[in-house]
C-alpha cells in the first residue's frame, strides 16, 4: 500500500515537473525586444510559428498577434480556441507562454525554431481545424516541415533541453 502511495505521489510529481517543460521565455526576451516590439507597434497583425522536435515527436503552436492602436492592447490568438488580450507591457510574457510547450517531455533534446510569418498558413489552419474537429489522423512531422519552411524570418533556432 505504501509503495502504491509512493508511486502515485511520484507520478504526480513527475507530471508536475513535466508541465511547461519547454519554456522558451528566457530565449524569447531578446527576440521580443529586437524584432517583435517594432512589429506590434506597426499595427499590422502577424504570426509566430513555434516548432520543437526531437526526432520522434514534434510540437508546434501558433500565435497570431494584433495590436489595437486606440486601446493599446495586444490580442494573441492561437487560431484554435485560445485568445488572450493584454496590455502592451504584458505582451512579452503572454506571447512567450503561447509559444512554449507545456506538454513537451523533460529530459529530451529538442531542436527549437521560432518563425515569423511562415507561408504554410493555410496548411496550418487546415490542420488546426482537423485537430479541433477531432480528426487528427494525420500525424504531422513539424520538425521536417520546418526544415523547408518558407518564412519571413527565422527569429530563433536552437537546440534546447528542458
Amino acid at each position: 500500500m505504501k509503495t502504491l502511495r509512493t508511486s502515485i505521489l511520484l507520478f504526480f510529481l513527475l507530471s508536475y515537473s513535466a508541465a511547461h517543460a519547454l519554456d522558451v521565455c528566457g530565449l524569447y526576451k531578446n527576440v521580443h525586444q529586437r524584432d517583435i516590439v517594432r512589429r506590434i507597434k506597426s499595427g499590422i497583425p502577424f504570426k509566430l510559428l513555434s516548432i520543437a522536435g526531437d526526432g520522434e515527436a514534434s510540437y508546434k503552436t501558433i500565435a497570431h498577434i494584433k495590436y489595437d492602436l486606440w486601446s493599446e492592447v495586444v490580442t494573441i490568438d492561437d487560431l484554435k480556441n485560445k485568445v488572450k488580450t493584454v496590455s502592451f507591457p504584458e505582451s512579452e510574457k503572454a506571447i512567450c507562454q503561447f509559444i512554449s510547450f507545456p506538454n513537451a517531455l523533460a529530459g529530451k533534446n529538442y531542436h527549437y525554431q521560432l518563425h515569423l510569418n511562415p507561408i504554410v498558413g493555410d496548411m496550418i489552419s487546415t490542420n488546426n481545424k482537423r485537430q479541433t474537429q477531432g480528426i487528427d489522423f494525420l500525424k504531422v512531422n513539424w520538425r521536417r516541415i520546418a526544415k523547408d519552411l518558407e518564412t519571413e524570418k527565422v527569429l530563433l533556432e536552437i537546440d534546447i533541453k528542458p
Partner: protein
Amino acid sequence: MKSTSIIFTLFMFSQSALAKDNAPLRKSPFFIDGIHCMGLTAYVEEEQFSKAYADADMAKIAYKTMQQTQCENIFKAYDVIKFQWVTDEELENLSFTLKKSNKFKQVDISIEKSELPNHVHLTGHFVPHAEKHKFKLHVSQSLEKGGDTGNRSSTLFEGKANLYQRGQANDPKYSVGLKYFKTQAKKPLSADELKRGKNDVTMTPEETIIQSRQSGRYFDLNFRVNFPPYSSTSWLNPYLVVGLFQQQETMDKSHITGNYFEYGTEIHPDQTNPKAYFGLSLLYSDYAVGGNEYFDYDNESQDHTNKNILFAGIRGHFPTEKFSAHYSVFRSLTEEMHLFAEVSALFTIYKQGDFSHNIAGDFFYLRQAILPQHRFGLPNRDETTIYYQGNYSLNSLGRDSSIIFKFGGSEYLAKNNLKTPYRRENTFGELGLQSSINDFDLSLALIYGSQRLY
C-alpha cells in the same frame, strides 16, 4: 482579364460599397486617410530630377508630387488606395504580399492613428535593391547522327545583358540580346539523294531543298527598353524591342536580312509571383529574301524580294514551384496568312532533396515562319517534343548550380496539300550544366540526336 479577376473585382467593389453604407458593421475597419513612403529616393535622385526645372521651388514641388504618385502606385498595384476601408486581415495580407513579391530588398508597412477614430495613415518603409548589370550566357553544341542522311553539328550561342536591374524580380531598364546559330552538314546530300533515301514521302520543291542537308547560320541582335524603368511600382510593364536578323544558307546561297519592332505590355496579375505575366503586343517585321536556287530567279537584279508584315500577338509566362508554362501566339494582320505559336510546359513530378524529376512538352505551330529562330524558309509545319528533364542541384559549385539532363522524342510534321506530307521522328538526349557566378548566369549543353535537330 480572367473571369475570376472580374468576379473578384466586383466582389471587392460590392464589399467596399456595403462597407460605406454599413460602416459600424465592419469587422475592425480602418479608413486610410493617407499613404506615405520612405526610402524611395533611390529610384529618382532629386538633384537629377531638378535639372529639368528652371525654378528650384517648382522643382521641389514637382519632385514631391512625383514621389507621392510613385508611392501611391506601389500600393495601387496591391489594390490598396487612399480613402478606402481596409480590415486588419487585408493589411496583414498586404504586408505578406509586398514581402513575398521580392521587388524590394526590404519592406515593412505600418499604420499610425489619424485624427478620427479608426482612421489611419499607411506608411511603407522601403529599401530598394541596388541597380546592377546582370548577364546570361548559354552555349549548346549538338551532334546529329542521321544514318544514311549524314551527320551534322550545330552550335547555338545566346547572350543577354540586363542593364540596371534591381534584384531578380524587377525588369531591367534595358536589355541587349544576341543569338547566333551555326549548323554544319558533314556529308551534305543533294535534294535528289534525300528523296531517294528512306523518306518515302512527297515534298514541295521548297521543302526538298530545305530538307536536304544544308549548312548555314543566323544571328539575331535585339535591344529592349522597359517602360517605366521602375517596374516595382507598377503591375503594368510596357516595353519596346528593336531587333535585326540575318540568315544565310550556304548550299543554295539563300539569304534573309531584316529587322523587327515589337511594342507590347506585360500585365503582372499576381504580385506574389512577379515573374508571372500575360501580355499583348504588336510585331512589325521588314525583311528581304534572296537566293538563286531557292527562288529560281533568272535575272540577277530580281534576286531579292522585300516584305513587311504586321503581327498581333499574346504572350504569357506562368512559373510556379511545381509547374511552369510559357506561350506565345502571333497572327499577321496583313492579308497574307502568317501564324506562329509556341506552347511549352514543365511539370515537376517528384522532388527529393537536391534531385527533381520533370516532364516537359513543347509545341510549335508555324505557318509561314517569320523570325530566324523559326528557321526561316522551312515549310508550314507542326513540331511536338516531349521529354523528361532531371535537375540535380550542385550547391558546392555555386549559387543556383545544377546539372540538367533531358531525353525524349519529337515529331516534325510538314503541313501542305500533298498526299503524304514529310514527317520525321527524332529521339534526343541532352546533358547540361548551369551555374551563377556573381552577376553571370552561365549554362552549357551537349545534345545528341538520332535525326536532324534543327
